[in-house]
Structures are given as C-alpha cells and as structure tokens.
C-alpha cells in the first residue's frame, strides 16, 4: 500500500504527468515535510524547492542539489500533460483561474502557470504555450496565528499583515479566519478572490476556515460591498489589498463599523508607506494594526506588530 497516499506532497504531485510523478515518487518520504514547490520549466531541469535549498531530479531518479549533470528535463509534452491534469482535462472550466495565473487544486495546492498571454482590451483572457508550472504545496498550520489572535482580538480597527512573498501571510490570515469565526464567535466574511484562503473546489472549502462565509472568486471590492449588504459580518477578511478599488472598499467596510483584516506585500513599514495607493488608508487609521512577518526562511513567524504607530512586543 502506498503510505504516502494521503500526504500533502503526494496530493499535490498527483497532477504531474505520469513519467515525472514516477521519478519523484521514491522521494516523497524524504521531501514530505520540507518541499514547498515543484517547478517545471520547458526544457529545463525539474526541481523541488525546499526553503532555501533546491533539489533537482536526475534521469536515474535520484535527487541532486547541483543544477548541472544528467538531470531530468521537463519536455513540452510533460508540461502540456501536467497542465491538462491540473485542469482535470477541462481547460474551459478553469479559464478565469488560468487568466489569473494559477489554478487551485484539490487540497488547496496551487499550480502557478506562465506562458504567452492572450490579451483582449489590455486584460489577459488566456495563457497559451505554457512554459512553466509551479506547483505550490499548501500546508495548513493550524494554530500559527494563535498568539497574534490573542493580541488583536480585543483591539479595534483593521489589521494589515505584511510580508515578502512566501512569508506565510496567507497561512496566518487563514488561521485568523478560523480563530475569529470559531473561538471568537464572530460573523466572518472571507473574501477569497484567488481561491488561496479557503481553496474551494466544487463548492467545498479544502482548508479549515472555521465558520466563515466564503466569497469564492468574487472580485475583492465587489465582494466586500456584497458581504456588507448580505451577510452582516463583524469581520471581513481578504488577502492582498492591491488596487485603489480595494482601498475605497476598505473605507466602506470601516465606515460600516466592520473590522477589516487584510494582507499586503511589504517587508517593512518604510516599504509599506511607499505604496502610494495604500498611503491614504494607512494615514486615515483604518488599518490601525500593522503586523510584519519575518520572511520566507521563517514563514508564518511574526517579526513586529505596530498599533497606531506604536511598536508592540511580537
């Protein structure tokens, strides 16, 4: 019996085309806890990213930490077959996700894709000739936000969780959603525009997000307004405030007395305040608590917390 049948790495890797899956399979036991990404690039070595270290698969099936030698290259046909499997052979059904650059898989894993963009009126409507696939292995760290939750649960005002890519913003946000909706008994609307938080597949959240009302795939600003009108939330949680539209929706949320918890890409306060569209929101005090994460080497760990500009103990 396959002992790794239900493990996260196996679940994510099962969308690889059979030849690549067979090559990786013997290493599942050693990589299970540390593999973060499986990367396929056309005519380039297949690699497995484990934090700061990257392993390559050789043609004989062993792992190597050198990027040269007899390495297994991802053929175009491997990428195409993997892409079809990622889409469950139904590309048309994942069109919106493909246009956004990634597809959510069963188990909450994500397959990032890139190739040649097909544009219509300056917006991406499709990606053709896929050249790279990045399988990101989702890991739920239940309880990773407990300390943060204790520090912010009785405070008022919005919360912005900041960090560099892969620093664990989404993981912390997901755990906060679970804690606020269960331990905190709050009515939480979870805006999951890109399917990263609840990772809903066929209407079923793949991650534990407690008792949240999940707005899956809705444009963020639209969902915030609709949540206010329809779900009477006490807390609205969404990831990545990234556009002026999101900022104006955040003001509406605050003016309705609803707490907003969101994330943003920024390593430091300086970097955060340099982002023009966020300045108005930050200066107005809508997001009174700023949380900074340590970085990709220590994903999910909190570095600093600021409340109304004052630094709190992390």
């Amino acid at each position, binding site marked *: 019996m396959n002992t790794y049948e239900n493990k996260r790495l196996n679940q994510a890797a099962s969308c690889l085309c059979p030849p690549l899956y067979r090559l990786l399979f013997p290493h599942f036991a050693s990589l299970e806890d540390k593999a973060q990404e499986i990367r396929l690039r056309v005519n380039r070595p297949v690699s497995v990213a484990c934090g700061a270290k990257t392993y390559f698969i050789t043609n004989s099936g062993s792992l190597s930490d050198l990027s040269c030698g007899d390495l297994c290259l991802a053929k175009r046909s491997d990428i195409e077959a993997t892409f*079809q499997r990622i*889409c*469950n052979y*139904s*590309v*048309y059904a994942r069109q919106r996700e493909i246009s956004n650059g990634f597809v959510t898989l069963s188990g909450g894993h994500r397959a990032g894709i890139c190739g040649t963009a097909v544009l219509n009126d300056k917006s991406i409507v*499709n990606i053709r000739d896929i050249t790279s696939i990045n399988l990101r292995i989702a890991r739920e760290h239940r309880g990773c936000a407990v300390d943060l939750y204790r520090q912010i649960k009785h405070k008022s005002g919005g919360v912005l969780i900041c960090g560099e890519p892969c620093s664990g913003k989404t993981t912390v946000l997901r755990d906060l959603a679970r804690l606020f909706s269960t331990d905190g008994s709050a009515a939480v609307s979870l805006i999951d525009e890109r399917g990263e938080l609840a990772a809903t597949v066929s209407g079923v959240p793949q991650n534990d997000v407690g008792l949240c009302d999940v707005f899956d795939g809705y444009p963020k600003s639209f969902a915030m307004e609709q949540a206010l009108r329809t779900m009477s939330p006490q807390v609205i949680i969404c990831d990545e405030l990234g556009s002026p539209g999101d900022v104006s929706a955040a003001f509406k949320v605050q003016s309705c007395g609803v707490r907003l918890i969101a994330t943003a890409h920024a390593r430091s306060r300086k970097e955060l305040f340099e982002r023009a569209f966020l300045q108005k929101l930050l200066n107005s005090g809508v997001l009174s608590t700023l949380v900074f994460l340590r970085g990709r080497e220590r994903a999910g760990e909190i570095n600093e917390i600021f409340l109304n500009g004052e630094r709190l103990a992390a």
Partner: protein
Amino acid sequence: MFLSTLSTSLRYQGADIFRLVHSSGELFSTLSITGGEPFEEAWKKTICNFRSRYALTSQDFELLGEFGSQLGKTDTEGQLSHIELYQALFSKQLSLAEEEVISKSKLYQTMGLFAGVSAAIVLV
C-alpha cells in the same frame, strides 16, 4: 441532440468535461466520471462499446474519436467552435447515411422483386 445539450452545459454549467459528457445524454452514461484517467482514454473506451450497439461506419468512429480528442482542451469559445464544427461534420455523415439507405433500399426492393418473379417463373 447530444451536441446541443453539451454545448449549452459547457457554456452555462462550467462543470468538468467528464460530468458534462456523462450528463448530456444516455449515449455516454457509461463514461467514467471518477477521473483518474485522461478524458481522451475514457472517451475512447466509451465509443468502443458503440461497435456492438450501433451500425456505425469506420468513418463515423474516426470522426467520433477526433471529436473526443479535443474535448476539454481549450477555452469555452474554442470548445463551442469545436462542437459547432463537428455538428456540421456529423450532419454531413448523417445525410450520406440517409442517401445510402434510400439508394440501397431501392436496390434491395428491386432485387426482392426480381427474386420473387424468378421464383414464380421457376415454380410455374
């Protein structure tokens, strides 16, 4: 009928191709919807069963195979165009089959008549 239903479901349901084909008509009710194997394989297996059930020509099977091989592989507009194209091709095949039935039925009627007349002559 199957193609029209498939086309409508594809546009409005957004379910995966296994479920869409399975639910679009009795013809494909044996198609596996549990996944695991590529859709093209599942399609081929299903149309293989048609050999014992329907009087289809090798050209019909070829056309069915080609049709299934591209299902699910493109965006919605591409899929709808694909269905439309094959609707036209299948209609053409149907017309040819109907013409063949008409011409062959005349032939068989004439042959029957001659056989009857011949038998009557022999008996008389």
